[in-house]
């Protein structure tokens, strides 16, 4: 007999037992391991995806911040440009102003220098002219130049032109007061007397109180001050016009 029914029954039981054992020791652990690994991989993928999403969000945030910073930078640059332009304009105005002031200062300095030089030229010319003239007159004609100049001044006071006479009379508007006669040289008493008489006639205001002063800077001239008016008769004024014409 090929079939032993006890063996058949035993093999059925054996098979069932083997199936249960393998389910316990093989299929279930392997299935759980595979499922666990799949779950782990899925979790890691989900975590990676979450990290990726976070990275995208962070990236978007950084990009937004970058755009804002760019916009802010542009605003600041524009403001800085405006401020710089304003500052530049202000500085340029100040520079122009300072330049203009410097130019005026230089012009003034130049004019002052020119005046000084003119004055020096005038003074030197007067001194030279007078020195030469006096020496020439003394050496060649035995004449006293200063005495002649004073005499000529007295003649002028005695017979002034219409214009000078009107000018002289304006000196007396406030009434005759102290009259000062300044000369570069000392006047003899006769010359002082002649001067007093000439002035009395000219001013036509009664006796005039005279005082005499010596001023060497007048060189060889005469200067009379009545009130606040001054009558000059010396070479300085004469040469002043010449020097002005020459320099300009």
């Amino acid at each position, binding site marked *: 007999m*090929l*079939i*032993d*029914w*006890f*063996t*058949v*029954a*035993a*093999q*059925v039981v*054996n*098979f*069932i*037992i*083997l*199936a*249960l*054992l*393998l*389910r316990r*020791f*093989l*299929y279930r*652990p*392997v*299935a*759980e*391991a*595979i*499922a*666990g*690994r799949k*779950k*782990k991989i899925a979790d890691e993928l989900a975590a990676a995806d979450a990290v990726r999403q976070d990275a995208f969000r962070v990236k978007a945030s950084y990009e937004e911040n970058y755009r804002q910073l760019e916009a802010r930078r542009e605003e600041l640059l524009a403001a800085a440009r405006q401020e710089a332009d304003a500052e530049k304009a202000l500085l340029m105005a100040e520079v122009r102003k300072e330049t203009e002031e410097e130019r005026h200062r230089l012009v003034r300095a130049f004019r002052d220098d020119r005046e000084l030089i003119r004055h020096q030229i005038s003074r030197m010319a007067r001194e030279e002219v007078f020195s030469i003239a006096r020496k020439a007159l003394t050496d060649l004609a035995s004449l006293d130049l200063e005495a002649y100049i004073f005499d000529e001044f007295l003649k002028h006071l005695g017979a002034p032109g219409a214009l000078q006479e009107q000018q002289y009379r304006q000196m007396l508007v406030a009434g005759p007061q102290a009259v000062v006669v300044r000369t570069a040289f000392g006047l003899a008493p006769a010359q002082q007397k002649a001067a007093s008489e000439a002035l009395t006639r000219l001013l036509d205001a009664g006796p005039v109180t005279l005082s005499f002063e010596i001023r060497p800077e007048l060189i060889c001239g005469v200067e009379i001050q009545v009130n606040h008016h001054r009558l000059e008769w010396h070479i300085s004024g004469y040469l002043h016009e010449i020097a002005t014409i020459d320099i300009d």
Partner: protein
Amino acid sequence: MNITPDQIIYWSYGSFRINNTLVTTWAIMMLLTGISWLITRNIHPDKPVSGRQGVLEMIFITLNEQISEAGLQNPARYLPFLGTLFLFIVCANVATVFPGYRAPTGSLSTTAALAFCVFLAVPFYNIYDMGFKAYLKTYFSPNPLMAPFNIIGEFTRTLSLSFRLFGNIMSGEIIISILLSLAPFFFPVIMSLFGLLTGVIQAYIFTILATVYIAAASKNN
């Protein structure tokens, strides 16, 4: 020479006989269980997969795929039954390379027992899935006149399963034995190699047919 290892009896008490078939079956059971336990005792999803675990997982996945391709949608549910069928038959057949070994699948009692298990499994799974009445209706499909043929079919396919496996393994062993006596140096080796191939193919056929029987009953519904 004994045709079936059932005839090799080690111990008997009345009808209880511990024969070679049962002993080798227990040995295969211990071997399969022991190997499974050794490999899977430290298995953990967080641990790296060892080579042995990889082989087990490959077998596990392949069996699942085969069951799924045969038409069963939830292979994990059928794996303990169908996978055990395959592994047991493969181990029993492949072990024929060891001298003096008699495969339990060369016993008609074993193949009949396995076929009987399949015979029981088909209604078990289908009744569990669709209910008793619905399963009974499958015997009257496509019309009640087919009921006797369907019932006969259940028995004949069980018989065919058991005799196919038994015939192939038993004949292989007998041929090797005969060749050993005629030409002991060359042909038995070739036949043993053929026996390995035949054994694996028979295990595959048996398992696939069992899967198809279960799936067919389910689809008939």
